[in-house]
């Protein structure tokens, strides 16, 4: 991990007693996730496995409170909209997943009372990982609307980021495309003060930290993208926003959680998009060692 800002933001956020050791690991290993759970030792996840910091006392509840405060820069109330969705975006573009006890009102989370676990996910850039697969997204001379599915941790976001870069810069294709990126959780672009810190290509416009259903119409109206890229579509509103983009003649590429085609179509809203041929290709992303593989499970050439 080379990005100094990212290392600094992690070190600032974690409890002081872990800071030095975590910094060492971040310097020498390709750490993908840092997991802090109350009353459990800290875990560092890398591509080949995990390191458990058993030599240190377990992460405590008091430390979890302190860590939340640090991550929110002593302004937990200002991060409420993110906390309600179970994450915090650090300024360096790092996303921290959080879990705990929410305060509910009429079946809706209105705030997060206590946090039990943190998952600091470090965005990694794997330039070139999508290049061999770019041609699979074309059909009849145009870009086919596609969904990429994979279970958590395979590298959907990393792959999608590189795909955005390829389309934007015109790598392995005749020309570059104007890309609109709806980056709700700031994972794709890892923007620091609205400037992407990761390479998403020279023709990409990104809307960060706004729900997809709100940012997609804005991107369509204001930036006239040729391709719309977004990560982790889950809700019906997300699907409606994608449908809206397709109706405007914009190609869409999105990711979704799932390990096979049935996982994908089990989501009713996605199934509707696939059945109505709004989404033409469904790919499954797999990781083989350090490489990625993209299988088509539903699409024009597959049918």
């Amino acid at each position: 991990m080379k990005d100094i800002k990212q290392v600094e933001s992690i070190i600032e956020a974690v409890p002081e007693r872990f800071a030095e050791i975590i910094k060492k690991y971040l310097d020498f290993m390709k750490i993908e996730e840092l997991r802090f759970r109350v009353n459990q030792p800290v875990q560092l996840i890398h591509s080949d496995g995990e390191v458990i910091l058993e030599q240190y006392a377990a992460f405590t509840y008091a430390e979890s409170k302190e860590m939340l405060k640090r991550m929110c820069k002593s302004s937990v109330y200002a991060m409420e909209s993110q906390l309600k969705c179970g994450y915090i975006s650090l300024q360096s573009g790092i996303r921290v997943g959080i879990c705990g006890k929410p305060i509910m009102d009429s079946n809706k989370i209105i705030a997060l009372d206590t946090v039990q676990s943190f998952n600091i996910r470090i965005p990694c850039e794997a330039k070139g990982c999508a290049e061999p697969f770019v041609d699979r997204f074309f059909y009849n001379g145009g870009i086919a609307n596609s969904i990429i599915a994979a279970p958590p941790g395979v590298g959907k976001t990393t792959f999608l980021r590189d795909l955005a870069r390829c389309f934007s810069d015109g790598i392995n294709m005749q020309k570059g495309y104007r890309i609109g990126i709806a980056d709700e959780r700031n994972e794709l672009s890892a923007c620091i003060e609205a400037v992407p810190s990761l390479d998403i290509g020279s023709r990409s416009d990104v809307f960060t930290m706004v729900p997809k259903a709100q940012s997609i119409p804005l991107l369509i109206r204001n930036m006239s993208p040729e391709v719309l890229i977004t990560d982790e579509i889950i809700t019906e509103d997300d699907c409606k926003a994608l449908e809206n983009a397709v109706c405007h003649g914009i190609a869409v590429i999105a990711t979704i959680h799932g390990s096979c085609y049935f996982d994908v179509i089990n989501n009713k809203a996605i199934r509707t998009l696939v059945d109505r041929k709004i989404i033409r290709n469904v790919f499954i992303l797999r990781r083989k060692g350090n490489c990625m593989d993209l299988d088509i499970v539903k699409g024009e050439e597959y049918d």
Partner: protein
Amino acid sequence: MIRLIVGVLLILITIMIGHILNNDTKSECELISDLNKDMRTLMGLVKYERKNMSEILEYLSRLGKAHQIWERMKEEFKHSNDMYTSWQNTIEKIRINEKPYLKELDSFFSDIGCGNIEKEVEKMDYFIERIELIEKEIVPRYQNKMKLIRVLSALGGIALALIAM
């Protein structure tokens, strides 16, 4: 004639000393009022604009009534990322002798920014009410103290002048 001049000078000097002594009290009193006004602004920025603490400190350091304090606190906050530590480091460098007032502000800053917006506003309302009460108590007391110093310094001057004559 010389004695008369010395007498007048003594009176003037003691009045001047009284004035200097009053200056400290007056500036402390003004500082407390300014801080209270800024605390109200701080609450507004949290409640209505959901600004985070670094944005609030930036705002107050430019436009706050007690902007020197906020400026210092902003610098401290950059290093510590913690309001209480920043406050503690700032207060070391400014002169407020009013202990109950400082105690309230200590509690306020030790607790700020940890909860959701409802909790924060509730806490802030409580603390602001408390510090305003303290201000209401302090101001007349300080005014009386200043009056007393003025009178005593003048009387002291007269007494010294009489002795000298």
